[in-house]
């Protein structure tokens, strides 16, 4: 027990903030992530993280809070993607890939300037891979507020969003405003990416977006159940990750401990692998055996 729960875990203030932040971010990522996976827009989600990186590193350079940089970058990226046009699937990969490249280049520039001009250390590591233990308390209320808004918007939109994801033609014929719904969803995706960047770094936030969601979708029976399960898995991943990262400081006295984001990503991955196994077993149990007798009867008298 001592190995798992190192001394001072719960009394440590940054840890408590991290736990709260991690839970909130995991929840909103899960809600948005379920729909992202259903709509097969994982790559778009990933592309936004790279634009968020540019925003975050730029904000660092300008001395503005990283959260605003991440959010701003992410939203700008979403806007650019909508403008470039994301109609045909192949085009979508190309277009988002190009945005990605330019954004990554800009990130490279800002991070370079961060280290040389501002002479700060650790910018690259913090922006890209997160620093959940050093998030200031003043940021947390904003994160919570934005998360709440996104979750509320997603709940309001859930029906048009679902039908559009299945078939935009049918949705159109039912009077759904397909374009509006698409844009609003991108907005939610962008904000969610921005928020999770604060917790586990911009480049790794995809794991929290897609991992628990994809895992839940494989196992659950309905979209609603999948969403709840994804939220649960996300929060568990975040909390165990924080715990292990805290503990890792004590495992090897000479090392600096392993990053939180690494643990969270690894746990998300493990959950996904586990669900694959469950699915494989479920499929093998329900194969129907051919009923030969029916054919015998029908061939004879009729």
């Amino acid at each position, binding site marked *: 027990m001592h190995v798992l729960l190192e001394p001072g875990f719960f009394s440590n203030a940054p840890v408590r903030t991290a736990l709260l932040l991690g839970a909130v971010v995991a929840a909103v990522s899960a809600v948005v992530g379920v729909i992202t*996976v259903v709509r*097969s827009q*994982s*790559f778009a*989600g*990933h592309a936004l993280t*790279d634009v968020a990186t540019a925003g975050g590193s730029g904000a660092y350079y300008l001395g503005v809070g990283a959260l605003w940089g991440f959010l701003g970058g992410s939203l700008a990226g979403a806007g650019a993607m909508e403008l470039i046009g994301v109609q045909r*699937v*192949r085009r979508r*990969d*190309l277009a988002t*890939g*190009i*945005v*990605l*490249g*330019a*954004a*990554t*280049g*800009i990130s*490279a*520039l800002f*991070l*370079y300037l961060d*280290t040389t001009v501002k002479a700060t*250390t*650790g*910018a*690259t*590591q913090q922006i*890209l*891979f997160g620093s959940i233990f050093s998030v200031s308390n003043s940021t947390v209320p904003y994160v919570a507020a934005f998360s709440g808004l996104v979750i509320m918007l997603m709940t309001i939109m859930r029906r048009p969003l679902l039908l559009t994801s299945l078939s935009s033609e049918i949705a159109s014929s039912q009077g759904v405003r397909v374009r509006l719904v698409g844009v609003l969803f991108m907005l939610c995706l962008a904000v969610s990416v921005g928020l999770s960047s604060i917790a586990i770094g911009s*480049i*790794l936030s*995809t*794991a929290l977006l*897609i*991992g628990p969601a*994809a895992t839940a979708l494989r196992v659950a029976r309905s979209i609603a159940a999948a969403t709840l399960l994804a939220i649960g898995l996300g929060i568990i991943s975040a909390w165990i990750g924080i715990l292990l990262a805290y503990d890792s400081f004590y495992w090897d006295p000479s*090392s*600096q*401990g*392993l*990053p939180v*984001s*690494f643990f969270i*990503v*690894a746990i*998300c*991955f493990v959950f*996904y692998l586990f669900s*694959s196994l469950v699915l494989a077993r479920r499929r093998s149990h329900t194969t129907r055996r051919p009923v030969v007798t029916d054919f015998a009867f029908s061939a004879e008298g009729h």
Partner: protein
Amino acid sequence: MFTGFMVNAWQAGTIVAVVAGVVGFFVVLRGSAFPAHAIPNGAFAGAAGANLIGLNPLLGLGVFSALAALAIGRLGKRGRPDVATALALVLMLALGAAFLSQSTQYEPEIYSLLFGEILGVSSAQILPTLFLGLASVLAIAVLYRRLLLTSLLPDVAASKGVDPFRVDVMFLLVVALATTMTVPVVGALLIFSLMIGPPAAARTLTSRPGTALWLSVLFSLLTIWISIAASYQSNWPVGFYVGTISAVWYLSARTYVRAKLFLVLQRRII
């Protein structure tokens, strides 16, 4: 700008650009943008790991790239290709971060592996880079017809005895090979740009595959050359220029094609 250590940068850059142009052409043709983004990330983890153990980073790059290529090739067949590759991609990055966190050079190492360090290329690296580059281009030349057929008409290819799945795996391995030699120069996050932007631009300007291939190499070369020169002058990182110039090619090509179409229609109406 053309003497001393810069010679290495020009040489390495040129080789990398040619390989990126050739391999990238097929990446765009096959819509393999996402796997092409994921394999360099595996390379990142490999280099970081090799760094930690004290091995030659090229070894780590090569092994992990190849493993990533094979994994993606297999995962892509069953289940959801996009979710599986996304998770694997991120895990590789996280792994690399974990490895690097144990080294004393955490910060600069991350930067150079992700964004490249072309101006720091030593003359000892040129020969291996050239060798791997030639191997990549040769592999593409050998696979050329099969790649074209399986990219455009996979079912027809299968009926002729060419297994699209195997060709896909082989292609991904070539991408892994190309990645191994390009990551030290351009960085894991930016090799993708160089591989996608110029070929995508070339494709919009011509519909003939041969021409598009040459154009893609040309644009790629121009991108690297301009980036190196600009980086030398401004001291800003090469990666910044590579990323932005690649995007500029693509957007310009598309705008040019749209403008041409517009003018043609105008003339028709008049």
